[in-house]
């Protein structure tokens, strides 16, 4: 057993190195005092400075944040409803429909929404179309998280609440809602990161006017590669890291409260 374990450690360590080296290089070169990403010249913060003076980039960041917040809000509400519906009514059609957008290649979702927005809704592509598109693919993720949380719970909690005379509304907002809250928060944070990160669907549903972060990064990579890209990448990594830490903190504090309640 020992012997095979050490072999596994070596293989695992190699995969971790493979996962982290590219990101480390991006971060390191964001502080490099050279226009080229090829050799280390010296330490500088000028790429970050350039970034903060780049008005279009700042607008793009704001736009992407607006999109991520609105679509994660919409997806959390719709996804929670979907999760509850799948759990309670056990309809196969529902779960297939809710999960299909996840199982589909993103490019197909992007292209079909593009055609739909232009042909049927006659919508000018822009922030609204991106928010709708992001909500569509995030619903399934929230629904999965909420559904699995509901599955882990003891049905008798709801029965006893009802036996004690709670109306179905009271039962929902005093019992169900607090119990699925961690799942909803996890779903919202996941939708937020998925939305901020999404390039493919955004690429097809974007308009001409408003700059959006991933599209901005894409043109920077394709047209003029400057270490400014590295700087924005590093900041984005910090943002997602921050979101994940909040997620862990929030869900563990919820668990902590629950454990305390259980023990008393």
């Amino acid at each position: 057993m020992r012997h095979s374990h050490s072999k596994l450690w070596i293989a695992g360590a190699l995969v971790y190195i493979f996962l982290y080296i590219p990101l480390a290089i991006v971060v390191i070169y964001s502080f490099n005092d050279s226009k080229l990403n090829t050799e280390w010249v010296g330490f500088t913060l000028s790429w970050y400075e350039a970034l903060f003076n780049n008005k279009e980039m700042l607008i793009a960041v704001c736009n992407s944040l607006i999109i991520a917040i609105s679509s994660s809000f919409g997806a959390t509400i719709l996804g929670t409803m979907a999760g509850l519906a799948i759990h309670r009514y056990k309809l196969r059609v529902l779960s297939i429909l809710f999960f299909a957008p996840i199982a589909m290649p993103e490019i197909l979702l992007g292209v079909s929404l593009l055609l739909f927005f232009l042909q049927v809704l006659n919508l000018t592509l822009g922030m609204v179309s991106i928010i709708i598109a992001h909500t569509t693919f995030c619903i399934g993720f929230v629904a999965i998280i909420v559904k699995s949380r509901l599955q882990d719970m003891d049905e008798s909690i709801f029965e006893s609440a009802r036996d004690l005379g709670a109306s179905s509304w009271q039962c929902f907002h005093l019992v169900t809602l607090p119990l699925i809250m961690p799942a909803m928060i996890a779903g919202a944070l996941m939708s937020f990161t998925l939305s901020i990160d999404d390039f493919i669907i955004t690429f097809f549903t974007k308009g001409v006017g408003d700059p959006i972060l991933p599209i901005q990064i894409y043109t920077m990579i394709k047209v003029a590669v400057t270490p400014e890209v590295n700087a924005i990448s590093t900041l984005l990594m910090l943002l997602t890291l921050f979101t994940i830490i909040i997620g862990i903190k929030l869900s563990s504090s919820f668990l902590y409260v629950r454990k305390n309640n259980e023990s008393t």
Partner: protein
Amino acid sequence: MIKEKNIVRWLLSGVPLLFLLLFFIAPSLIIVFTSFRFPGEFGGLAPLIAPMGTVDVEHGLTLEAYQFFFSDTLYVRVFIKSLQVAVVTTLICLIMSYPLALLIARSKERLRNIMLLLVVLPFASNFLIRIYAWVIILDPESVLSYFINLILNLVGISPVIFLFSPFAVLLGMVYVHLPFMILPLYINLEKHDPILLDAAQDLGASHWKCFWYITWPLSISGVSSGIVLVFISALGMFAVPDILGGTGDILIGNLIKDQFISTRDWPFGAVLSIMLALTILLIIGLGAYFLRRLRKRNYAT
């Protein structure tokens, strides 16, 4: 009371259902409909009904876009190449992920969460940046290219450029999809009962035999969900070949993207999208069929 329950029921399932009918089912149908239309003169679509006063404007429905797809082997060739790239990407991901997933699953619980987080973290950094990082690494003037070419030079092989090559595309594909394989594998492997392995070892089975007769068969469902996730995403990918590939490394995703963004031939783009969807359904269907047969045979023995 019954009425209230019914209202709740309709509200809970109805609202998200309506949203998805509108923004998922309807768009999917539109794409099928679009594939039978004529392309517009200046991109987009030709009108369904001929405008008043004009005679020879293309209008109505047609199979032209489908005929165009099969008229040139170029498109079928791109499909086959995309399939090859997706299959190789999936296999490499599987080979790289399995040991790591096994390692995490067999580690102590505290360590396990940290190791999982370390897998998810790079995945949470921006998608484009994960691809772009390889542009820096594979650049002809990068340190890595320099050293590899130095060694190649000593052996007498002429220098190699890694960026904008099929190799770069494959590398980027594997890098972007790796977590999709590690996570489902881990979720499966974590459930295995270690007692089975102990028993097999007590009975004198080697590590390899333990793996081949116990761990691997038990992990098939995790392996197949990882394969499905990676394969579907890899088959439709256009960003990786777009950034890391050369002009010859186009995949289906790039073809589709071009039809909608630059060429603006919507009907043909719709045909390509439908072909992609059909390919995926066919392959996943075949995979599920063989998996079921395999299971049946295993039960029989």
